[in-house]
C-alpha cells in the first residue's frame, strides 16, 4: 500500500518531467580571436554534450578580403554520427574592445549528412571586427511545421 516513499517519489518524478519537458538547448560555442596573420586563438565551450557527441568544430580559416577590408572566416563543422543531424548556427562578431558589431545575428537552420563535414562562412560586418563566436545548437524553432 501507500507509504511515505510514494509521497516523496511522486513530486520528484513530476519535477524531473517538468525539467526535461521544458529544457532549452544551450549552444556549443567556438570563440575565435583573429591576429594580424589570421587565426590567433580559439576556444570551445561545450554546453550540450549530446550535440558535442554528434557535431565537432574543425579547422578554422581566416583571411583578409582586401587591403582595408574586414575578414572572412570559415569553420569546418563535422558530423561524427552515422545519421543526418539538423541544427541551428549563428556567427556573432566583436571588435577589439568586445563590442558586438553584428547588426543582427539570426539563428540559421542547417543540416549535415552522416559523417559529412562542411565549411560555414561569415564575413565580418565591418573592418573593426577582430573576434567572432560560432554558436551551434539543437533545433529550437518558434513552432513546429505541422502543415
Amino acid at each position, binding site marked *: *500500500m*501507500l507509504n511515505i516513499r*510514494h*509521497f516523496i517519489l*511522486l*513530486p520528484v*518524478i*513530476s519535477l524531473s*518531467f*517538468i525539467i526535461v*519537458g*521544458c529544457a532549452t538547448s544551450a549552444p556549443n560555442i567556438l570563440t575565435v580571436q583573429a591576429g594580424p596573420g589570421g587565426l590567433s586563438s580559439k576556444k570551445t565551450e561545450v554546453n550540450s554534450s549530446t550535440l558535442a557527441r554528434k557535431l565537432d568544430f574543425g579547422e578554422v580559416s581566416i583571411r583578409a*578580403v*582586401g*587591403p*582595408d*577590408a*574586414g575578414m*572572412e572566416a570559415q569553420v569546418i563543422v563535422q558530423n561524427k554520427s552515422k545519421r543526418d543531424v539538423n541544427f*541551428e548556427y*549563428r556567427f556573432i562578431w566583436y571588435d577589439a574592445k568586445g563590442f558586438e558589431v553584428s*547588426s*543582427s*545575428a*539570426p*539563428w*540559421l*537552420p542547417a543540416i549535415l549528412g552522416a559523417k559529412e563535414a562542411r565549411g560555414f*562562412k*561569415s*564575413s*565580418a*560586418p*565591418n*573592418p573593426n571586427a577582430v573576434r567572432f563566436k560560432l554558436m551551434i545548437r539543437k*533545433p*529550437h*524553432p*518558434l*513552432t*513546429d*511545421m*505541422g*502543415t
Partner: protein
Amino acid sequence: MKRIFIFIVFGALLTLLSGCATTPSVSYGSAEQVETITTGFGSTDLQMIAEKMVNSLLATPLLQSGKRPVVYVHRVKNKTDEHIDTKSITDKVKVTLLKSGRVRFSAVSEVNDEMIKQLEYQTSSGIVDPNTAKTFGHQVGSDYFLYGEITSIKKRAGRVEDVYFKMTMNLVNVESGLIEWADEKEIRKQAKKPLLGP
C-alpha cells in the same frame, strides 16, 4: 489513503501539463529565432538569403577597393505563386552592407519624387537661403545596380508538402553592362500534415 494517493497523482499530472503549457496570450519572441510555422516564405528564409548575399558581396573584390561604389537597388522579381515583400529582402541586404561602410546606395529609385519636390522647394520657393539651397544636377550617378529574382517549386503528395525557393541576385556595372557579381541561395522546406486534424 487511496483517495489521497489519487489526489497526489492528479496534482502531479496537472503540474506537468501546466508547467509546459503554451499560453494563448500574446508574448514577445526573438526575431533571431528560427521560424517554421508554415512552408510559406518566412522571416528565417529572409534572414538566410540576406546572410548569404551579404557574406558573398562583402567577400567580392569590388567592395574591397576602398572606393565605396554607389549602388542602385533595383527590384527583386517575385516569380513564386505566393505574395513576398521582396523589398524587405533588398532592404535587409542594403542595411547590412551600408553598415559595413564599403558601399553607398543611391536613394533615387525609392524617393525620387520627394527629392525632386525638395529640390524645387529649395531652389524655387524663395523661402530657403540661396547659400544653403541644394540645386539640380548634383546627384551622384550609380556605379552598379543590384537586381534579382526569387522562384519556387511546390510539390504535394499525400500528407507531405515540399517547397523549394531559389533567390538569385546580380550586381551589374552600369557603364559596361557586365554582371560583376552574382550569387544564389537555395532553401528547401518540408511539412508533414498530422494524421488527424484539418
